[in-house]
């Protein structure tokens, strides 16, 4: 058993409305920040886990995304181990 720490990043698929990003964008505007074209909000999950091997860890992490962490209907995810 080795110990791994991974970061999973979940972002909205292109074209899916992002009310949060939209609100933040306009808030930045009213705070006087200029030149902001767009803001899209996403999530990260920092997962610490034990697994037999790096590839086992990856398999597990991808499964977690499919099953729970990402809503694959509207979200994409990426898994980085290290």
């Amino acid at each position, binding site marked *: 058993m080795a110990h791994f720490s991974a970061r999973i990043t979940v972002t909205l*698929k292109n*074209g*899916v*409305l*992002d*009310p949060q990003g*939209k*609100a933040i964008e*306009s808030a930045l505007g009213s705070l006087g920040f200029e030149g902001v074209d767009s803001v899209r909000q996403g999530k990260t999950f920092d997962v610490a886990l034990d697994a037999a091997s790096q590839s086992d860890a990856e398999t597990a992490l991808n499964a977690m995304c499919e099953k729970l962490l990402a*809503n694959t*209907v*509207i979200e994409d995810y990426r898994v980085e181990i290290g």
Partner: protein
Amino acid sequence: MTRMNEPEITPELVAEHGLTPEEYDRIVELTERTPTFTELGIWSAMWNEHCSYKSSKKWLKTLPTEGPQVVYGPGENAGVVDIGDGDVVVFKMESHNHPSFIEPYQGAATGVGGILRDVFTMGARPIAAMNALRFGEPDHEKTRHLVSGVVAGVGGYGNSFGVPTVGGEVNFHERYNGNILVNAFAAGIAKADGIYISKAEGVGMPVVYLGAKTGRDGVGGATMASAEFDDSIDEKRPTVQVGDPFTEKCLLEACLELMATGAVVAIQDMGAAGLTCSAVEMGASGDLGILLDLDRVPVREEAMSAYEMMLSESQERMLMVLRPEKEEEAEAIFTKWGLDFAIVGETTDDLRFRVMHGGEEVANLPIKELGDEAPEYDRPYVEPGSPSPMEPHLFAPPDDYNTALLKLIGSPDLASRRWVWEQYDTMIQGNTLQLPGGDAGVVRVDGHPTKALAFSSDVTPRYVEADAFEGGKQAVAECYRNLIATGALPLATTDNLNFGNPERPEIMGQFVAAIRGIGEACSALNTPIVSGNVSLYNETNGEAILPTPTIAGVGLIDDAACMARMDTADTGDALFLVGVEAVHLARTIYQREILGEESGPPPPVDLLTEKARGAFVLAAIRSGYASACHDVSDGGLAVALAEMCMASGYGAEVELDITYPHAALFGEDQSRYIVAVDEPWANMFAANSEGSGVSFARIGKVTGDRLIINDLVDISVADLKDTHEAWFPNLMNPQPLAEAAE
């Protein structure tokens, strides 16, 4: 300006748009040439089941929709009913079934957003919401995920928007495994002279786009909402619509502010196939043409084609016709609320629906024909048979009545829904007089010294499945009963007719019979249908849902001071049963949960009896006799008594003279109430009952902390509560073994 090079119209493309070859031929005829791709999209949106009601129109026309209290019946965004003092209540129910199955949170959220928009589009501030939900078997692999997503979505939208959710329903049945139902209801209050409709007036008036920007959300959604599911659903999936309750709340405030300035001539929210349906509706109902310039439509994505813009289902958008002189004032209001405001077209006198994009005319269609000429089908149907009655002796009694009662009140359809409604803001606006958990939600009429409105949503799908006609009647009757039980006079109803594939004669037969039943009941009980929604093709791999014609009713309480509740019974109160000893066990929860069968006919409803008993109970409540009241429905008398005990915290001693104990306790015979009466008034109440000729019996009294029925039932109220409250939390947060062990 990038433009999508439009595909040529092939039979396949026509089929993909859910149009039959015959329908397409008619379209070519009306277009007087081969339609462009964009035009095909427009026709298909206007002619699909969802917008055209082509399978149901013929039958919907038979429903009673009129009455002295009705200001606007079906046809507008929502029904409008007079509640006196110059106030009206505006309400409607609508389904978001398919989207909720695909993405439960957003599907349910946008469903709530859509129905709220229907209500405030008419100038009413939403004051109450309900949600009627049907899921598959509790232990089906998808059910938990769907329940938590849908409930979170309903709450996520309504709570943020700021409307109290005061009622609803949740059922579980395997027949919903592949098609859940999410029916959302909303009601608002307006001044009778402050109602707005979609009928445009005047030529050359600016057509204004308001609200959120347009994206590719749900393109193809309207067509999908009318398509039967199969396993290829993933391919059918359009970009999921995401709800933005914050924008909707701003849209509400902006619209009401704008209406107050008198700037609004006509207004229509953008729902399914947003821009298309709303623009056509406004023009056609005003006998006007509409010219739209898509280059002016606020968009959120690049290179959107005319086709995509016309079919987009992006949420939180409105179309209005404004008085030109008020344009600036209007724009200022929308800017204040951070909403997009764009003049995207004008009304014309040519009765054409013309759409410009990139300087090119991409659509030029006859605006009236788009709606009026939509196909209307008289689908073949077979009369559903009605099963023959079954005597009580055909049903086995339970081994033990205590165990049976506990099993029933802890069963999926009867267990407490607290887990659900505690995720909804039930108290916002400060006017909620009765929360979910009683017979009907009650909200006082803000600003009026005494008035309140009661809301209930009901249907018993297993009854409709057994006998669609009786089941349709029963849905209306139970709704009526729930309103009466709070002391409200039922005013009117809205329906949400969820069925399978109407192209199958037996399904169409259920639909026709249910509508006949609903119609008869609404006429008999003076609760006209003032709005509604039809959801067909709720079917997966040929298996249809249970026929589910949800009925939501609104009742008026003149003086909230003499409203009745089910939780206010007091020690010493006498308990009366209004109605007779039950004998009907077929299709009951008892039959399903204890005997493991679902067979026979549903309990019949005698509408004259229903009305007579309702009138009597209402009068008794209004003259202050009832210290508590509860209708008897699923699970029968024993369950109703248990519910009253759990609500008040007091026990009861009940003595029934009984022929068939299991039928008397668990039979679901209709038109019955339990009324708790303060002892000193008991004889007077009995006398009145006799006088009014309704059957009734004094069955016991409120006392102690145990529910005792003859020598059959003896359970502590605490045990009843534990069982009743435990089921839903256990379903939704099963304790991981590790924790359970601790």
